C-alpha cells in the first residue's frame, strides 16, 4: 500500500507539464453507489472526497487519477441506513476512515472513451478494478464519467449476518462524475 502511494506520488511529481493536475469542482462532482436490498434499488453517495486527476487527451496513456474518499460522510440513502453502514460490519468508518482509488493505467478505447484500471481500497482491503470512462468538455471544464461494479464481500462490506446476499446484493455499482477545474495546457 505504502509503495503504491509512493509510486503515485512520484508519478504526480515527475509527470511532464503537458498534463494537467487539478482538484475537482466539488459541488458538481459526485461519487455514488447503488445496490439492491430485497430486490429494491437503494442508492447512496459519498459527500466528501478529494480527487487528483491528470489527463491529456493527446497522451491519454500518461493520465492518472487518485481519489480519496472520507467514509464518515457517507449517505446510504436513508437515515437508518446511514447510521448502519458506518458500523463495524459495513464500512467500519472508525477503523477505516478513508477509501482510495489509485489508477494504474488509462487506455484510450475510442474518441472520448477510455478505460481506467486501478486499485480500490475500502476497509483496508485492496482489489483491482476496471472502469470505462467517458471524457468530454463541459463549459470549458473536463467531465469524467463512468461506472463499475464491485462485489461488496470482496471488501468485507457487510460481515456476519449481513454477508447474506439474499437480503443485500453482493453486487454494488459505483458511479462517478468528476468535473475538473483546470483545462490544462494545450
Amino acid at each position, binding site marked *: 500500500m505504502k509503495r503504491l502511494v509512493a509510486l503515485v506520488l512520484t508519478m504526480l511529481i515527475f509527470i511532464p507539464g503537458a498534463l494537467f493536475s487539478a482538484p475537482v469542482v466539488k459541488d458538481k462532482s459526485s461519487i455514488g453507489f447503488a445496490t439492491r436490498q*430485497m430486490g429494491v434499488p437503494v442508492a447512496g453517495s459519498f459527500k466528501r472526497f478529494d480527487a487528483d486527476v491528470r489527463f491529456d487527451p493527446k497522451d491519454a496513456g500518461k493520465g492518472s487519477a487518485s481519489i480519496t474518499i472520507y467514509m464518515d460522510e457517507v449517505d446510504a*440513502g436513508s437515515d437508518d441506513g446511514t447510521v448502519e453502514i458506518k458500523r463495524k460490519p459495513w464500512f467500519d468508518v472508525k477503523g477505516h476512515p478513508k477509501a482510495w482509488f489509485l489508477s494504474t493505467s488509462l487506455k484510450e478505447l475510442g474518441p472520448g472513451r477510455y478505460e481506467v484500471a486501478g486499485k480500490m481500497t475500502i476497509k483496508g482491503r485492496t482489489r483491482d478494478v476496471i472502469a470505462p470512462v467517458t471524457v468530454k468538455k463541459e463549459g470549458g471544464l473536463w467531465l469524467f464519467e463512468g461506472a463499475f461494479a464491485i462485489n461488496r464481500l470482496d471488501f468485507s462490506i457487510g460481515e456476519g*449476518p449481513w454477508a447474506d446476499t439474499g437480503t443485500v446484493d453482493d453486487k454494488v455499482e459505483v458511479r462517478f462524475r468528476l468535473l475538473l477545474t483546470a483545462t490544462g495546457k494545450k
Partner: protein
Amino acid sequence: MGNDRWTWTAIFLHWVVATLIVANFALGEYMGDLAVSPMKLRLYSYHKWLGVTVFALTIIRLAWRAFHAPPPFPAGMPSWERFAAKAAHALLYALIFIIPLAGWLGSSAHGFQTIYLGVIPIPDLLAKNNELSELLEEVHEQLNHALLLLVIAHAGAAMKHHFIDKDDILRRMIGLKGRK
C-alpha cells in the same frame, strides 16, 4: 333459498383477507422495534408484499360485491343494527383500502420503493421526504389501531348474532345453510 349465504367466492376472499390482515397486523407490530438486521429487512419486505396482496384482493372483493348482491339481513333485525352493520362494513372496506396505500406512500417517502415479491416494481408516487414519511407512517399505524377496534366490533357482532340472536349472519359467511 339459493341466496341465503354469501357466494363461495365472497366467503373465500373474506377469510383469506381476514387471515392476511391478522398476520400482517401482528408482523407490523413486531417488526418496527427490531434492531436493523437482515431479518428486519426481510420482514419489512414481507409486510409490504402482504399489504399489496390485501389491497389487490380488496379491489377484487369490491368488484365482486358490485355484481353480486349480498344476502339480505335477517327479517327481524332492527333498523339501527342494519345501519350500524352497513356503516361498519363501509368503514372496514375504507380502512382496508387506505391502510396499504398509506404504507406504500410512507415507504416511497422513506426512499424505499415497493417491489412486490421482489419482482414487480410498484411506482413511487412520492419522492423521498423524511417529514412526509414520518407523517404517513404515523397515519398508517393509527389507522391500523382504528382497524383493530373495528375488527373486534365486527367479530363481536358476528358472535352476538350467532350466539345471542341465533340468526344466520355468521353461518352464511362460513358457507352453512340457514338454520330454519
